């Protein structure tokens, strides 16, 4: 079970934050790359206990947020077709495309269903052989293996009414893109926990060789995050750099080779459009030839056309740490969790939603 009260131990948290504050030096900027970290940081009030010495900057690690609007439009177009069922992760329901959202399409009568896994979507396909079931493949290396497994199962069973609109992203190339941006300079990276379970610490080796910025993998409980921040603060103060793992109970050097093998069987790396970061070389995944029959874009001849971001929306800058939500003119006015304009306000893991919900200014 993911929950263990020891990792929220108040006394341990207090001692860790005292040690972080005792590391002397200039103010440092650390980017938490992963959306789940962003939410955890806010939920546990971690910014309020760090003091002035560490500024946490939220990164692009919310899958829904970095998904290009054109991909959302394409899935909506598939939902509008006769005889299709879109079976999706719930997070995607409210994301506005150019002119609609899946939630709105559902209210107009399109068959859109929320599922918790691609296997559930495959089960819907088995139960509805006369309908086409589309699963929007959103997410990083964390979710991609399970979706690959569903595609392999569909292939082995000869299920012809199941397909995946693949918008999967790869984290290490995005780290390189972030590190290459001059004006978003960060002193260290808090690396994602779940992605690292799959790719392992070694998955960041290429990135770290090119950009030796202090980087520590962290879990999601307060003690996990604080211990990783302490290591980052110590390295930065000492002028040293390392790629370290502070989530040893879940992450190994090698990660999960079986999951990677399943993922690599089905997908291969391609250049991909990330909202806020543009086209990232090797930043996405596409279906290999042997599985291209399960490519929803191909099956329905729908292309994800590039779409301009909503006017005034700063999600692009916020995703790379160049702006914080209150900098955006829409934030809190026309863009709220109830009526979101940009994806960072829609997703439960979005930076704007976390700011708005938990009081970024507290």
């Amino acid at each position, binding site marked *: 079970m*993911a929950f263990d009260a020891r990792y929220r*131990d*108040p006394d341990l*948290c207090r001692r860790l934050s005292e040690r972080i504050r005792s590391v002397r030096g200039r103010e440092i900027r650390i980017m938490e790359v992963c959306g789940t970290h962003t939410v955890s940081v806010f*939920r546990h009030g971690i910014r309020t206990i760090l003091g002035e010495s560490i500024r946490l900057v939220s990164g692009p690690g919310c899958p829904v947020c970095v998904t290009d609007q054109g991909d959302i439009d394409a899935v909506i177009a598939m939902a509008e077709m006769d005889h299709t069922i879109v079976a999706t992760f719930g997070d995607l329901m409210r994301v506005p495309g150019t002119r609609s959202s899946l939630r709105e399409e559902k209210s107009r009568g399109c068959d859109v269903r929320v599922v918790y896994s691609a296997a559930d979507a495959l089960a819907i396909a088995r139960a509805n052989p006369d309908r086409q079931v589309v699963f929007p493949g959103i997410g990083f290396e964390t979710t991609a293996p399970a979706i690959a497994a569903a595609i392999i199962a569909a292939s082995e069973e000869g299920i012809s009414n199941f397909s995946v609109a693949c918008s999967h992203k790869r984290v290490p190339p995005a780290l390189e893109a972030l590190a290459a941006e001059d004006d978003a300079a960060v002193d260290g990276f808090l690396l994602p926990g779940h992605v690292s379970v799959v790719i392992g610490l070694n998955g960041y080796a290429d990135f770290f060789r090119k950009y030796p910025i202090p980087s520590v993998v962290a879990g999601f409980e307060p003690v996990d995050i604080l211990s990783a921040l302490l290591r980052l603060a110590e390295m930065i103060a000492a002028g040293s750099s390392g790629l370290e793992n502070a989530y040893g109970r879940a992450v190994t050097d090698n990660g999960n080779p079986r999951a990677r093998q399943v993922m690599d069987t089905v997908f291969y790396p391609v250049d991909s459009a990330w909202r806020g970061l543009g086209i990232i070389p090797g930043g996405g995944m596409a279906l290999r030839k042997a599985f291209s029959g399960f490519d929803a874009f191909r099956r329905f001849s729908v292309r994800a056309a590039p779409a301009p971001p909503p006017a005034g929306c700063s999600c692009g800058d916020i995703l790379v740490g160049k702006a914080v939500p209150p900098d955006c003119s829409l934030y809190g006015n026309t863009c709220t969790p109830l009526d979101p304009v940009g994806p960072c306000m829609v997703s439960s893991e979005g930076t704007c939603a976390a700011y708005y*919900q938990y*009081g970024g200014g507290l």
Partner: protein
Amino acid sequence: MRDERILLDHGSGGLLSNRLISELMLPLFDNSFLSMQDDGACLDVPAGRMAFSTDSFVVDPIFFPGGCIGDLAVNGTVNDIAMCGGVPRYLSAALIIEEGFPVKDLAAVVQAMAEAARNAGVLIVTGDTKVVPRGAADKLFINTSGVGYIPKSVSVAAGNARPGDVVIASGTLGDHGIAILNQREGLSFDVDIQSDSAPLNHLAGRMLEMAGSGIHVLRDPTRGGAAAALNEIAAQSKVGIRIRESSVPVAKAVAGLCSLLGLDPLYVANEGKLLAVVESALVEKVLAVMREDPLGRDACIIGEITGEYAPAQSGRVIMETAAGGERIVPMPTGEQLPRIC
């Protein structure tokens, strides 16, 4: 009657309707008001103030660990009246049934309603049954309304919280919502989490008898969970609320599943818990009487009312986190879990 199904004729007002009512409902709900079979119930009521509430129940699945739509429908309205400080007495029950619904399931639901009414000490004195064509409703929806009288010494309202008051929870939060979620198709984690569906009128009665007007606010945190209830209290009383995460009671299995699913137990529905805002001088006495009641055994203080009112944030509920930080507990936006009650 084992394989019998509800037909459109059961809602026709004719012979089949009569049979359904006289064979299934009347014997179970058994009271003199209902057996008159008039268009409505004629009731004797004491002079004074009255609490009146209504609620519709659309929970999916209909049967879940710890209860079913039937006891939920009775307890829900009983609790709404109790949270007004009222002593619930009479309920109405209106059933909207989908054609083809198994009669034995209906019998089980009606049985559960009758038992819940008995436990709460209320009478179901009037009702209605409609049957709609297959697909026009999902299985069974129930509306209940109820009335109760408010004793003279009682003055509870969401607008009555004052700085210095103490916030009490009657027990663990989030059980009902997680029990429903876990039961739903495709999400059967092997853990024993039961809905807390229960009538709170006896517990509330003890508290009010003990502290009278010293109980300022009572709320049962149903949809939207404790977070919604606390925000409503803050907004209506124009106060701030501070709660301590380490004091908020959450069952271990519920905390684990919430963590796994990315849910916050503060936002998950309860159907047998109450939050009370109590004058600080009376807190220990109120807690003592609560703990004598099985439904208040785990009652505890979770926070205080403060003067930190911030209208822009619709009141201001702040949580001191276990990790030692602070954050806002916002009003929920949108539907976290549809059809939870």
